[in-house]
């Protein structure tokens, strides 16, 4: 059933695409982080003509499957708008946009957690709106969200096999190709599972440790 020698022979092929998988994860995560913050600010905006449409769009993206959004990027964009993206680029953009809606909620909770008094002190000291955000609000609201962000990074990593549906050659895609060449699927898919586990479990432990450390410093009253 399990062929060790065969498993060893296909391992290099699988390891070869790890960089692609990680690159997609990190690129997608960076897009999600950069896009999530303005989305959070827009959703909290007092100007209804900004907050309502942005909230509607983010809720829509969050409530529909990533796979459909990837198909839109790959099939609809070229046909309707004449924009053709490479599968990899479409993959990271799709992943980034999809998860930016989740991260915007994380940012929002961080911002909402700041006491009102911080806003009032900023007004009393006559800080401009922009300065209040960059000097007072964001430096306080982002650090407590870092563990949650870390968790989303791991979730995004585990989501990368979805990109195989738009022909991005990542781990799952490679395993399928390797397996179908020899009709030995057990080894290929098992190895993919093991590789995902080896990469994501330590990361999860790291995030948990970070979370504990932040809770401790929060108790000491230094984090907030």
């Amino acid at each position, binding site marked *: 059933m399990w062929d060790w020698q065969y498993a060893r022979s296909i391992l290099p092929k699988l390891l070869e695409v790890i960089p692609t998988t990680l690159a997609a994860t990190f690129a997608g995560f960076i897009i999600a982080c950069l896009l999530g913050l303005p989305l959070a600010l827009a959703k909290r905006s007092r100007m209804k003509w900004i907050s309502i449409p942005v909230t509607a769009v983010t809720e829509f993206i969050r409530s529909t499957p990533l796979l459909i959004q990837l198909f839109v990027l790959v099939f609809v964009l070229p046909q309707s708008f004449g924009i053709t993206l490479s599968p990899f680029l479409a993959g990271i953009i799709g992943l980034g946009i999809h998860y930016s809606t989740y991260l915007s909620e994380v940012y929002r909770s961080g911002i909402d957690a700041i006491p009102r008094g911080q806003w*009032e*002190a900023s*007004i009393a*000291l*006559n800080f*401009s709106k922009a*300065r209040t955000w960059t000097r007072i609000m964001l*430096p306080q609201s982002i650090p407590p969200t870092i563990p949650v962000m870390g968790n989303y990074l791991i979730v995004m990593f585990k989501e990368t096999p979805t990109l195989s549906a738009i022909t991005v050659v990542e781990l799952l895609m490679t395993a399928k190709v390797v397996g179908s060449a020899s009709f030995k699927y057990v080894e290929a898919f098992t190895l993919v599972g093991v590789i995902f586990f080896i990469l994501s479990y330590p990361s999860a432990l790291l995030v948990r440790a970070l979370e504990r450390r932040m809770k401790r410093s929060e108790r*000491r*009253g230094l984090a907030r």
Partner: protein
Amino acid sequence: MSQIIQRMDENEPIVRYRNITKSFGDHIVLKELDLDILPGEKIALIGPSGSGKTTIARLLMTLEEPTSGTIEVGGEMLWHMQRKGNWVAANEKHLHRVRSKIGMVFQHFNLFPHMTILRNVTEALVHVLKMPKSEANQRALEILERVGLKEHTQHYPAQLSGGQKQRVAIARALVMQPQIMLFDEVTSALDPELVGEVLDVIKGIASEGDMAMILITHEMDFARDVADRILFTDGGLIVEQGTPKDIFENPESPRLQSFLSRFLKGQSELQADTRIAAGTE
């Protein structure tokens, strides 16, 4: 022209509330308030909780917008500006400019927890007044020394006691050199043994003179010592006002009389409690 301005500086109120009403929904917090504050004048606002005294300060600090009426600061409308000959609601730029004359210290300190004490004090100097960092540090150190916190400049707010935090908050507002300072129940959140150090700092600032102050307080002795004029508010109205002597020795309105007697009773009960606790009674 310059003569006119000078005359205004000396005799004209620096703050003018005219017909100010503030309501939250159906609840009216201030009713048609008129109040003038002279440059350098020290005013204490006393009265029961919910009588509108905090709202008087918050309207001036632009933390709340009046429902109707006007406020002038230094001869300029605070909440209104002229555009093409019409009075319209002030925009952010206008508020920013007029607000620079006002500073405020809060009940709950509201220090910036992610900054050292020194940066709490220099941040607005550098980023609002655009002062060079070295000069800002210099000014901050001088003022922190004045409030007795020079040795804590590199600490974070969480490492200080309530009284120390409040003294930092005072330094942070003072360093901006406002013409009017608002103190909103600045000792209410403090342990009793820390109240004195904060009040002493404020008394020191008040004795230096030229800054107008609004002191919202439940500390009657402090109000008597520091204020030029005391205003008693109740139910959204200024019920009575006068010199500390008038207010404490000859209260006219029944409401002020009962407020003061409740206070004095409270204080004597407190003293009795202390005596019992100390075993002298």
